[in-house]
């Protein structure tokens, strides 16, 4: 190894896959270069990466500097510039930019395709990746400025593959596995994710927004891609009609033929399955009854929390009249506190070409682009101008579904035209009846 890494070495032991071991293995592969690759960036990039990381472990501070604007021609995103603050010590990572490669919806791959991507990234980059970044992209960590265009050219020409988002753009949308392999999915998350990603390529590549904007697609309220917490606009599957219920299968669960929750709790002996205790009593709306071996659901009062279905997937299934709910504004705490998505559209059918959904998206964008301040997330704008304003701008009728509870302060701002006689009274008229 080029650099001694006594601190990092201690992260090689222990059962969990060691990124240090992996980085070392890549460093070795590059050094040996049995395949005889014409590396387009320094061969010792991984050695220097290990070296600078070791230094951070010593100083307990990062050694990376701000990026500055690097990228590919015509795009405002997809690349995060990076330079290290000790280029003499670690020339291999003096320039060390990240590229975000737009992942396929559902993160499905064939080995063939992954190997092709590796060929390209080994040649023109560090060979180090994140599979995947938190937003969802394939993240390629570390290359030099001249390679950016080369990589982009090959990606688009050879692999029919585009970059993802960064900066004040639409960020790379991502989704849960959905109907591809999940019985709970209320709509085709991959289809919607892929279509909107492509329909909004311009918004994704060319910064026209006040700040970043994220879409995430969850097939049901279990939220496996955490859309409700991590996307300015989350699309979460739901249904309108009744949970499909198979009493025979319910009996089978009660009889212990099937493991509750599809075996998710089999690591411990929780005792015999107790449908009353484990399902009926835990229903948040109390809309279930189990009597005389029959399970009853008062579907009108069900809030589709998924619990009973999760516990007895073979007996209970999502309804047939499916669609999704749209929630808006989720974000991390910077600046004035984190937000979860707030319910904007309780239910919309998911039908190509998704016009109804796109209408909502575009109405929201129009408002945000009009009113949003620089670096103001959608959620912050909603807080600043109010949820009522959002409804007004998106033409959505206010309904109790929009709130957890009505306001507890009476500070209602009335519009002048809502109040008989308006706001302009005559003080002298008033004084006729009320002396000073």
């Amino acid at each position, binding site marked *: 190894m080029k650099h001694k890494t006594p601190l*990092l070495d201690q992260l*090689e*032991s*222990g059962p969990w*896959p*060691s*990124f240090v*071991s*992996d980085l070392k*293995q890549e460093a070795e592969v590059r050094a040996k270069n049995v395949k005889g690759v*014409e590396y*387009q960036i320094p061969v010792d990039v991984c050695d220097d*990466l290990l070296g600078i990381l070791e230094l951070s*472990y010593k100083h307990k*501070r*990062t050694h*990376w*500097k701000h990026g500055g604007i690097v990228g590919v021609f015509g*795009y405002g995103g997809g690349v995060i510039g*990076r330079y290290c603050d000790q280029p003499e010590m670690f020339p291999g990572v003096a320039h060390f930019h990240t590229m975000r490669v*737009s992942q*396929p919806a559902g993160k*499905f*791959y*064939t*080995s*063939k395709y992954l190997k092709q991507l590796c060929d390209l990234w080994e040649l023109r980059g560090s*060979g180090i990746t*994140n*599979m*995947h970044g*938190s937003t969802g992209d394939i993240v390629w960590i570390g290359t030099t400025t001249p390679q950016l265009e*080369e990589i982009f050219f*090959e990606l*688009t020409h050879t692999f*029919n*593959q*585009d970059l993802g988002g960064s900066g004040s753009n639409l960020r*790379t949308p991502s989704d849960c*596995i959905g*109907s591809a392999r*999940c019985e709970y999915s209320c709509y*085709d998350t*991959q289809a919607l994710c892929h279509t909107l990603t*492509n329909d909004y390529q311009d918004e994704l590549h060319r910064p026209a927004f006040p700040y970043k904007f994220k879409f995430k697609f969850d097939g049901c309220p*279990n*939220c496996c891609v*955490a859309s409700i*917490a991590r996307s300015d606009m989350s699309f979460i599957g739901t249904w309108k009609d009744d949970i499909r219920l198979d009493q025979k299968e319910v009996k089978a669960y009660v009889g212990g033929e099937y493991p509750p*929750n*599809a*075996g*998710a*709790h089999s*690591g411990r002996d929780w005792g015999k399955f107790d449908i009353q205790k484990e399902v009926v009593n835990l229903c*948040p709306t109390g809309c279930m009854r189990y009597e005389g071996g029959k399970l009853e659901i008062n579907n009108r009062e069900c809030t589709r929390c998924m619990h009973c279905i999760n516990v007895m997937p073979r007996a209970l299934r999502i309804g047939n009249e499916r669609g999704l709910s749209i929630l808006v504004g989720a974000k*991390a705490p910077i*600046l004035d*506190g984190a937000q979860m998505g707030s319910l904007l559209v309780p239910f919309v059918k998911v039908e190509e070409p998704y016009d109804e959904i796109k209408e909502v998206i575009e109405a929201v964008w129009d408002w945000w682009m009009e009113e949003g301040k620089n*670096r103001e997330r959608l959620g912050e704008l909603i807080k600043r101008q109010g949820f009522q304003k959002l409804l007004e701008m998106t033409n959505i009728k206010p309904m109790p579904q929009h709130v957890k509870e009505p306001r507890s302060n009476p500070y209602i701002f009335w519009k002048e035209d809502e109040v008989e006689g308006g706001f302009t009274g005559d003080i002298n008229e008033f004084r006729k009846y009320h002396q000073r």
Partner: protein
Amino acid sequence: MAFISSGYNKDKPMENRITDIGPRKYDEFYHPIIAKNKGKWLYHEILEPGVLVHVSETGDKIFTVRVGGCRIMSCTHIREICEIADKHCGGYLRFTTRNNIEFFVDSQDKIAPLKKDLESRKFAGGSFKFPVGGTGAGITNIVHTQGWIHCHTPATDASGPVKATMDVLFDDFKSMRMPAHLRVSLACCLNMCGAVHCSDIAILGYHRKPPLLDHEYLDKMCEIPLAIAACPTAAIKPAKIEVNGVKLNSVAVNNERCMYCGNCYTMCPSMPLADAVGDGIVIMAGGKVSNRISTPKFSKVVVAFLPNETPRWPQTTAVIKKMVEAYAKDANKYERLGEWAERIGWERFFEKCELPFTHHLIDDFRDPAYFTWRQTTQFKF
């Protein structure tokens, strides 16, 4: 090394340039059984930790073997994944939303050999390359961020603490003895790229010192108004500073008002706040994302600060282990960590997890802080 052209011509960048084509279409990569049964799935079962079967109304079944991925992956490692997929899965695989790898096989008898193969592979250093697990009521992979390996604002590393923590939680990655899902996440600064704000247990890098001011370069390297505007607490004011004889435009920071968020640094490289002893880790707990039973919850700060003890963060992993064990011991079946804490009351949470309660944990940020205080006579001694 000789420069190899991709065909890109920097003098004519627009020359047969291709843009806006987006990602590859997902269905190119579907396993045939998935392609055929999409939308037709009836139910699933977790056959053993890390192994799932999904059954379709067509009678087809797809078997999934999930392995822990450490998110930083070299191409060499990815090639090994591909080799395994080729050998066992007809080349089909996917990654999960928590950075695990899922291998697909079309019949039950292919599971054992695949598992055997996976578990047999180890890194030179001795760690597993492909541990099978991460399903059901266990502890799956930690979502995390860049840390010292690539970012400029971290207050701690990402991959290191994650490796150290997963080593401690490894048995629970491979088993399903928890009362419910337990999700651990890490973000190396409060930008929270890991979206740790709603995890059962969150590891958050946090600075504790106001920015240093590089007066000599500040005006040259930064847009002073942008730096000032970036501060959420209005702690930054413009200032004229005399640096060896010359008066320079710079800024002054009111340390009382600073909450070390690093926004100024993001805007202005001359205001670094990384510090070996000031930086460290905040532990949060009780968040969740799913809408199951209870609505999504934010994580709460339960330990105000733990130092950056490289390379293995022993105090951090110890606190997490304590919380996990207290939760496993005391919570009801299906009860998430936050639901448990709310049922027994936070006063009991601190007692059972043997964590000290300090003034730092009381919210004092803006109006909503009020709602976190206790407006009732209901409490436990």
